[in-house]
């Protein structure tokens, strides 16, 4: 079994509202899986079903090859989007309590907490109350509580919201390291640049339906249009543009470079070859810039959502 988590045709209704319609996803072991979608698409509902907070109306969830059971809460670490801590409880006590709820023994929890407190440099917070901490500090505690019990599957819902850039990159590094140590990560966000940076697999949910999923590189391959961004140095741009337009589909392009070049996006037809294009261009002008246009996660997101 290579998938840490599989959801099979999961559906959920709230009254007359369909929150999830027949959604299936597969999260490969050791991957960072991006669960994407606009607000209200059903991401949080799916995450809550995986956490057994909400029960699905139909379909089932399989964790590490077995049907999801109440005991599995030990195997999952969940950082919800709506997150907080008991304001008037002390940091240490609170973290211990939450760890014990996840089934850890008190001694084990204490030792692990000590490790994490040192790692994130928050050693002297043990006796502080949450209300005395800043928002970013409180979120560090939430992050620790989420990962403390070494879960096989980590679920982060908008993990970076509220973090300053330093803490956000700290948390990002921790997520990557946890993956190195064997955890699988599901990660729901709107921030496409972090998807680009972290995720190897994605699924896109829109209006309760899954409309796209797979390996990010595969998806990009399907979405790429065999278009090349070029920068050419020429005396007569208008004439050159005309000449190229006769042979290829040409669109204006904009990118930054040092020279005052002619900038074009050139789309090849189905069987077109980048080498042929390059040698054609070198024969016409000096080529300063030649890059294949790869759709960003953001482009794919907007395009698919609009088309649906």
């Amino acid at each position, binding site marked *: 079994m290579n998938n840490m988590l599989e959801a099979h045709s999961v559906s959920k209704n*709230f*009254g007359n509202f369909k929150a999830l319609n027949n959604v299936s996803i597969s999260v490969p072991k050791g991957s960072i899986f991006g669960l994407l979608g606009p607000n209200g698409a059903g991401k949080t509902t799916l995450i*809550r079903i995986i*956490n*057994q*907070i909400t029960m699905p109306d139909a379909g089932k969830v399989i964790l590490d090859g077995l049907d999801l059971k*109440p*005991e599995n*809460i*030990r195997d*999952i670490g*969940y*950082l*919800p989007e*709506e*997150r*907080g*801590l*008991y*304001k*008037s*409880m002390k940091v240490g006590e609170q973290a211990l*309590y*939450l760890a*014990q*709820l*996840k*089934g850890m023994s008190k001694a084990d929890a204490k030792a692990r907490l000590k490790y994490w407190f040192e790692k994130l440099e928050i050693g002297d917070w043990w006796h502080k109350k949450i209300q005395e901490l800043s928002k970013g500090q409180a979120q560090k505690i*939430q992050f620790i*509580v989420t990962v403390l019990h070494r879960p096989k599957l980590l679920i982060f819902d908008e993990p970076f919201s509220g973090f300053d850039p330093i803490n956000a990159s700290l948390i990002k590094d921790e997520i990557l390291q946890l993956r190195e140590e064997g955890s699988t990560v599901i990660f729901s966000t709107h921030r496409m640049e972090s998807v680009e940076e972290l995720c190897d697999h994605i699924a896109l949910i829109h209006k309760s339906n899954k409309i796209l999923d797979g390996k990010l590189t595969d998806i990009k391959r399907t979405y790429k249009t065999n278009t090349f961004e070029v920068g050419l140095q020429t005396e007569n741009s208008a004439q050159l543009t005309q000449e190229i337009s006769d042979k290829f589909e040409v669109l204006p392009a904009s990118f930054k470079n040092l020279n005052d070049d002619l900038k074009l996006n050139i789309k090849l037809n189905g069987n077109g070859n980048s080498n042929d294009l390059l040698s054609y261009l070198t024969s016409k002008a000096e080529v300063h810039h030649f890059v294949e246009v790869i759709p960003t996660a953001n482009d794919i997101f907007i395009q698919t959502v609009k088309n649906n």
Partner: protein
Amino acid sequence: MNHLPLIIQREYLTKVRNKSFIIMTVLSPLILIALMSVVAYLSQLNNTKERHISILDETGKVSSIFENTENTTYSTLAETDVETAKILVKSKSEYGLLYIKASQDTTKLYEDVVFFTEDSPSLSVIGDLEDKLEKQFTDIQLVQNGVDIDKIETSKVSVSINQETYSGETTSKIDNILKLAFGGIAGYLLFMFIIIYGNMIMRSVIEEKTSRIIEIIISSVKPIQLMMGKIIGTSLAGITQFVIWVVLGFVFMSVFSVVFDIDFSNVKTPQQEMVEQTMQSGELQSQMQDVMVAFYNLPITNLIVAFIFFFIGGYLLYSSLYAAIGAAVDNETDTQQFMLPILMPLILAVYVGVFTVIEDPHGTVSTVFSFIPFTSPVVMLMRIPFGVPIWQQLLSLGLLIGTFTFTVWFAAKIYRVGILMYGKKPSYKELYKWLRY
């Protein structure tokens, strides 16, 4: 995984360590006792005030009956008219002037009795004077009509009815008073407990919602476990507080009475006065024994067992509803619309208990309300000292358990959905929809 003990422990410790909880626990009995001390002190002040009353008796028949007491002295005025007497008494700042005007009619002894004072006289003074005059004039009338007063005195009897049920159980008036006291205390205790600690549960649910920790918690425990843990933990904190109140109450009371020399037996509740009035009609010694007998006559075992079960049942019933309300709203101000339906049956129960059970503990109204689950804990607890057949108690308890199972289920449903709902002020219609999620 059973996290219930862990949740109970947290809820209990958070409540007990809370500063306002500690302050309330220590301060409440102190304030109460201080208040009682003030009342006791004031009533002592009143009793020790000396009064001087002058009497102008034109009939010449009653002035001899006023004997000086510790707090009141009387003096008789003679050879003066009422206007001069009034000026005289006023100039000496005496309490008042009692004026008895002789009647011209030979069949009547007096025409008018007036008591002149600076301000309105106290009721007890007037009552005392009236009693004395009535007795004296009645005696004189009786003698005039040729009745031998001694014979009347010797003919008087005092009747005290012995009460006995068909099964041979004897009861007395004292029994009834004691039963009322027991039932009243038990019912009232439950009522207070529900209101104070139900609210506490509700607030603690709201706190979890507003601090947004709720989703983190319920990804580890089932909502119903969290809810039950909250209810039980808060109740234990409540019991702790109650026990401390009782202990502190006794301590403060003895400290105050020693330090300020206040006799708390002067502060009387209506029940105590009833007991005392009953006692005065007979010999004190045997009456005290009667109280002890009456106490042992109470169905003590039944009372204790029933108290425990009905208390727990009633408390769970209401506190689960409080928890559901807490889950349904975002902040405390939104709770108002849901509080009324909870408080209504509770207040109704206390009213039925106070007005109907005292009058007729086994009447239709009392019996019916002691079966309806929302009023039964209070009403049944008040009825039980008067002897309620076991089958009725069991039936009522069965209904109570059935209903509280339902309300806990209902509350858990609302709770489960409500704790994840933000920003909406829910209507009853909305709540009904949640039940079907």
